[in-house]
């Protein structure tokens, strides 16, 4: 008997057999167990494939998506405009459509920059990607006229070619650097001053006008039937937050008040009018995904709510003991969720951390990342934490060991857990190159050490090098302004490099940079999230670093955070 071909089975799976072919296939299947089994196998594979290829980033992601695309488009358009024509003076700024767009975009970028302070996660992405685009687009000519849109395959090929084109190095430096390759924040500083000096009201109108228009347009499209009806949020609510602002267990220490102050000053000094101009005029309007609105809405919530009492005494608190002003505690989602559940029952989780030989591991960090609770194991490897009842992801970090992750259930009775850590394989002979380069230097502009003078990132593909340069610039800016949030942004960039870089000295160097950025962020404004991220990054780097001054420094820093 002739069995069904794989093509036929596949089409049958998709319900795309028709007419006679369909009838014949059904008849055959009814009679042939083998083919039924083959079809079942195909069906099963398909069933597991779908979830593996699907991911829901959450409503908040889509609500802000169009705005981020808009920012990106503007930035790209402006890069082109800047190269083509440079009339001088403010006449250009306010006299031409491009100039106005530039002024408006600057304001938008400022707000985006300020919003890095208060909005984390997906929103940090926007300025990064934009920045990458700024340098990448610096040398792309605007698209020449091509055959009509019917030839979309040409589009694909051309886009391909554009992506892969490597302009000569000199060209790149010349066009990329002066105009647009500077970090969004630094560039906009200058623009902001010029703008403010001139006619701030005009740009405010532009921004708020634009914002109002797109808000209105969103409303219309929603009613006209967007793909999925978007539930409008309650007033004052921000997509990122679920309820109240972070608990007082995460205030900035007194020592970081200057950093906090400068950040506040930066935000209020440089974007006062644009920030407020873009606000909804009445509090009853639903909050939109615009970063400006989010910034202000979150600020209001941050400073309107009373602070909760300090964290329980059992766990080693991450926040400094001297609870000072709220400062700029970033209302990251985990903290907000934590508050969400703070009213719910809490339970105790105690346990032991041992290595693969059963020996206790002291000084390991036990973390419940979703509620930002941490504890350090004592000399016998024991720890206890309190956390809301329910299931949580548990991670254990210790230098010399691979990070361990598992899920734990916390009930109202005390639960216990035993964690076994796998030691990190000894990185003997991690290249000599890595060893000479690992002197702990912060900031860019490193001189060459003995031997290899090359930039560790020189061999990376362009897209990654963009991230590296952007990260370096962000780090420099963050250092200059003592801004924890900008260090966060730099760290997010470094994270991408770590993930994409080939294993070896390049990834190690990126990890070092990441650890540095995370440390600086925590130093500039300690929050549980920053502490967790810093501990993770420092541990990951220390695990691969050769013994020496740099590694010792990393261990010292880890101690400080855990204290």
């Amino acid at each position: 008997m002739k069995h069904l071909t794989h093509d036929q089975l596949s089409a049958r799976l998709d319900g795309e057999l028709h007419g006679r072919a369909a009838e014949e296939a059904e008849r055959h299947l009814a009679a042939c167990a083998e083919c039924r089994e083959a079809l079942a196998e195909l069906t099963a594979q398909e069933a597991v494939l779908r979830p593996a290829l699907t991911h829901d980033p959450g409503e908040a992601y889509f609500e802000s998506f169009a705005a981020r695309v808009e920012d990106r488009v503007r930035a790209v358009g402006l890069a082109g405009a800047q190269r083509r024509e440079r009339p001088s003076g403010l006449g250009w700024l306010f006299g031409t459509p491009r100039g106005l767009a530039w002024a408006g975009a600057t304001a938008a970028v400022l707000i985006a920059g300020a919003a890095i302070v208060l909005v984390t996660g997906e929103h940090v992405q926007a300025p990064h990607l934009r920045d990458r685009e700024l340098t990448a687009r610096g040398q792309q000519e605007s698209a020449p006229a091509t055959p009509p849109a019917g030839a979309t395959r040409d589009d694909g090929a051309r886009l391909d070619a554009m992506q892969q084109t490597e302009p000569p190095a000199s060209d790149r430096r010349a066009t990329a650097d002066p105009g647009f390759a500077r970090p969004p924040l630094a560039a906009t500083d200058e623009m902001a001053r010029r703008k403010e000096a001139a006619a701030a009201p005009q740009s405010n109108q532009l921004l708020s006008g634009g914002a109002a228009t797109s808000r209105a347009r969103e409303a219309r499209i929603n009613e006209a039937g967007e793909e999925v009806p978007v539930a409008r949020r309650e007033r004052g609510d921000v997509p990122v937050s679920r309820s109240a602002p972070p608990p007082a267990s995460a205030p900035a220490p007194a020592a970081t008040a200057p950093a906090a102050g400068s950040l506040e000053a930066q935000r209020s000094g440089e974007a006062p009018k644009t920030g407020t101009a873009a606000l909804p005029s009445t509090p009853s309007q639903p909050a939109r995904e615009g970063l400006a609105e989010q910034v202000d809405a979150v600020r209001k919530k941050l400073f309107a709510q009373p602070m909760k009492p300090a964290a329980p005494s059992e766990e080693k608190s991450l926040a400094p003991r001297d609870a000072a002003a709220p400062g700029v505690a970033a209302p990251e989602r985990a903290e907000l969720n934590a508050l969400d559940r703070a009213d719910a029952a809490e339970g105790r989780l105690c346990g032991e951390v041992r290595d693969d030989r059963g020996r206790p591991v002291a000084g390991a960090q036990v973390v419940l990342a979703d509620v930002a609770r941490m504890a350090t194991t004592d000399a016998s490897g024991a720890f206890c934490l309190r956390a809301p009842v329910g299931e949580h992801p548990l991670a254990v970090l210790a230098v010399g060991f691979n990070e361990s992750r598992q899920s734990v259930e916390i009930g109202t009775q005390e639960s216990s857990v035993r964690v076994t850590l796998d030691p990190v394989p000894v990185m003997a002979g991690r290249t000599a190159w890595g060893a000479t380069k690992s002197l702990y230097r912060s900031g860019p502009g490193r001189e060459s050490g003995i031997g290899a003078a090359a930039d560790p990132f020189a061999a990376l593909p362009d897209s990654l090098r963009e991230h590296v340069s952007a990260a370096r610039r962000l780090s420099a800016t963050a250092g200059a302004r003592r801004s924890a949030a900008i260090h966060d942004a730099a760290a997010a960039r470094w994270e991408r490099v770590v993930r994409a870089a080939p294993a070896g000295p390049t990834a190690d160097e990126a990890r070092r940079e990441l650890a540095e950025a995370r440390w600086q962020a925590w130093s500039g404004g300690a929050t549980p999230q920053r502490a967790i991220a810093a501990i993770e990054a420092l541990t990951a780097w220390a695990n691969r670093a050769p013994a020496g001054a740099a590694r010792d420094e990393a261990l010292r820093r880890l101690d400080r955070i855990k204290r």
Partner: protein
Amino acid sequence: MEVALRRNQMGGAENDDELIRAAQAGDQAAFTGIVRRYQRSVYRVAWALTRNDSDADDVAQETFVRAYQALGRFRVGEPLYPWLARIATNLAFSLFRSRRRRPETPLEPLVEAGQQWGVEDDPAERVSADERERHLSQAFAALKPEHQTILALRVVEEQSYEAIAGTLGVPIGTVMSRLSRARAELRARLAERTGETTT
């Protein structure tokens, strides 16, 4: 409901035409309307082909930026979705090409990862499901780009053969055979990894 909406979107050319014309004429809000209309589809395709958040975000945003730049040359009346899907898939594959061989994938950073864990899952279930997904993801990544693309369109977007044919610009017969080969290749790659079949 969602599927119906998606299909509707493929054939909603009339609605799109107005928006496209307006956007071509410089109406920023109209372009934003196009973005909002297709953002989820584009994101779905981007994620299916990149399988991580930051790349998917990058590809999805970049798709619309490129679309914006090329919109002037788009012929009103043609369906928008295939065009956008093509841009997205090209971008995803350019991204791979410009990268070196990937190292051992580091764990997702803790603080981000904390957000995504569900509360209802049974822990044991979760671990084995993760394993399975990882194998699948790796096996999928090993497929030829054209197989990845066509599977993404069929599995994630649930496009009919006819719609896929339109998106890829190939005859329906090709869609059928290519899908079949894609699935066979996936099975082979999975078997390589796990030493067993999916059932």
